[in-house]
């Protein structure tokens, strides 16, 4: 590695870009056109379609009973799934980043699993476990507990799909920060809990907030896994993304895109808040990243 660097002509080390102006313009142009076609245009289309018949038609999409119930269910699902993943994500990354133990790699792999598994499978595993024909089906039936095709199943599927968001964000951050500060706190007589609250948590708070934002966006937007366990009962088990599909299939395009614009708006707000955080607290985040 070092010998390869040494043989490089020293003159080239200074200039970062060696391509000509035309090549640069071409590459930037391709990137911009690509972004416009695949990101900006579809996003703009959502809003254009949503407002195709004016404000009143747009607002009517949200006053309808089924839409309200979908909004309520989506908020409820996120309100359960996000705090759950917050607590367990912190616990998992704390254990992984600050301690050495057997099976650590296995744990990391397990946390990553929902990222690599298709959402349809994430939904189906719950049908196979909790469905009437599933592993626990007969027992649940006997005790009159409805998991899938009801709110608990939707929450479970959402938690599963969004599980890696908090842990994946925190593990590298915590690992980079190392254990020196915690060790110092413990040496000075702090209890483990005290050290966690006063040393670890403040160090990771911006990363934590960021991951919660992402986790929330995905929890509200998840389609595949939730679609499998929902049963699509109107006014009862339809979340916002499922409601968008139903409206679209009923040729109700304005309402469909209006609800879609709500989800797109959520994503935009998430990005905005994230950028604001990065801009406002950039110094502190950098300090946190440098650590000591």
């Amino acid at each position: 590695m070092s010998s390869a660097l040494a043989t490089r002509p020293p003159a080239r080390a200074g200039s970062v870009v060696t391509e000509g102006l035309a090549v640069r313009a071409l590459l930037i142009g391709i990137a911009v056109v690509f972004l416009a076609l695949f990101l900006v245009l579809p996003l703009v289309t959502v809003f254009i379609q949503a407002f195709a018949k004016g404000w009143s038609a747009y607002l009517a999409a949200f006053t309808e009973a089924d839409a309200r119930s979908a909004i309520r269910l989506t908020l409820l699902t996120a309100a359960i799934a996000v705090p759950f993943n917050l607590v367990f994500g912190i616990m998992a990354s704390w254990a992984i980043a600050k301690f050495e133990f057997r099976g650590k790699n296995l744990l990391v792999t397990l946390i990553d699993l929902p990222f690599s598994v298709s959402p349809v499978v994430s939904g189906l595993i719950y049908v196979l476990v909790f469905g009437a024909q599933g592993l626990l089906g007969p027992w649940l039936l006997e005790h009159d507990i409805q998991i899938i095709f009801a709110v608990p199943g939707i929450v479970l599927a959402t938690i599963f799909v969004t599980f890696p968001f908090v842990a994946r964000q925190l593990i590298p951050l915590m690992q980079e920060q190392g254990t020196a500060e915690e060790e110092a706190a413990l040496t000075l007589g702090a209890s483990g809990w005290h050290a966690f609250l006063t040393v670890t948590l403040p160090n990771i708070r911006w990363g934590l907030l960021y991951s919660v934002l992402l986790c929330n966006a995905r929890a509200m937007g998840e389609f595949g896994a939730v679609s499998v366990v929902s049963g699509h009962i109107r006014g009862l088990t339809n979340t916002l993304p499922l409601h968008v599909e139903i409206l679209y299939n009923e040729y109700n395009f304005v309402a469909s895109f209006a609800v879609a614009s709500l989800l797109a708006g959520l994503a935009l707000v998430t990005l905005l808040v994230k950028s604001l955080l990065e801009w406002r607290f950039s110094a502190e985040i950098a300090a946190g990243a440098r650590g000591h």
Partner: protein
Amino acid sequence: MSSTPNVRRLSRRRRVLALCAGSVGLVSAGLASALLTSGTAQAQAELLNVSYDPTRELYKEINAAFIEEWKAKTGETVTVRAAHGGSGSQARTVIDGIPADVVTLGIPSDIDAISRLSKKIPADWRTKLPNEGLPYTSTVVFLVRKGNPKGVKDWGDLVKPDVKVITPNPKTSAGGRWNFLAAWGYAYEKEGKSADKANAFVGQLYKQVPVLDTGARGSTVTFAQRGLGDVLPTWENEAYLVFDEFGRDKFDVVVPPTSIYAEPPVALVDANVDKKGTRKQAEAYLQFLYSDKAQAIFAKHHYRPIKREAAKPEHLAQLPELKLFKIEDLQGNWDDIQKKNFDNGGLFDQLSKPPQ
């Protein structure tokens, strides 16, 4: 970081504690409201009708009419909820435990499947309601682009070399199965009752299908909204719905000389209504489908009512006369029809296998 004053640390700690308390509060609030919603659901009679794909608009009107009539008759306010999807996948959700009180599906074999795999519906469900559980029937007609540029008049025209056909997957969709069986029945009669020639005809037809959606509504959107294909063989009611919804200047409905007698049956899910205590309301709901009021609504939505006298003449006039054949007369009982054509390794699987 280590130089941060103690005061700052304390306030941070307080913030962190608040964060923890907040999240715990959110969790418990969420759980509480989840419990509450399931609690209120039991206080009032609530029916769930698990139905197939194209009946969305139909049951919106039927349900409202039933709620009104039930209120007038008994004073009780009943809620009727609906879930729609491909008939086969809807049957699957009932098998997997969705608490459906009644099923109104697209083809008898889907109710047979629920009965066989979950025992929630008795095997003799056909005998429980009038007309073998069929409050209405339907058939398959063609939706084509305005002016019928490919000249599609009959089933035989679907295999013309330049014609692209849009039809749903027979594995998941009842409409897809009726299309399959209608094409088969047409070729069987045409080719002097040769099953081999009928198989070959259907095989050729499915080679000209660019997209297999999971439900009839998915195929409609593919054809009408995305503009794919030249002809959409579909439920009569679905064809006229598109005709009315997207404007008559974009499409034409072509009624072939012969088509299939399509039987979308309804049934009570015995095990579920007994568990939920909704048998009375669910039975009344199914009986209501045979009432004059419901029969008139069927005709209005381009379904074929079994009591024609209950329907308005202008609605009956929209149901064209054509020769309808019953697939049972050609292929035997429904167990055989389902097994031979659509189960794993059946005719559809053999035909859709890529050439070796």
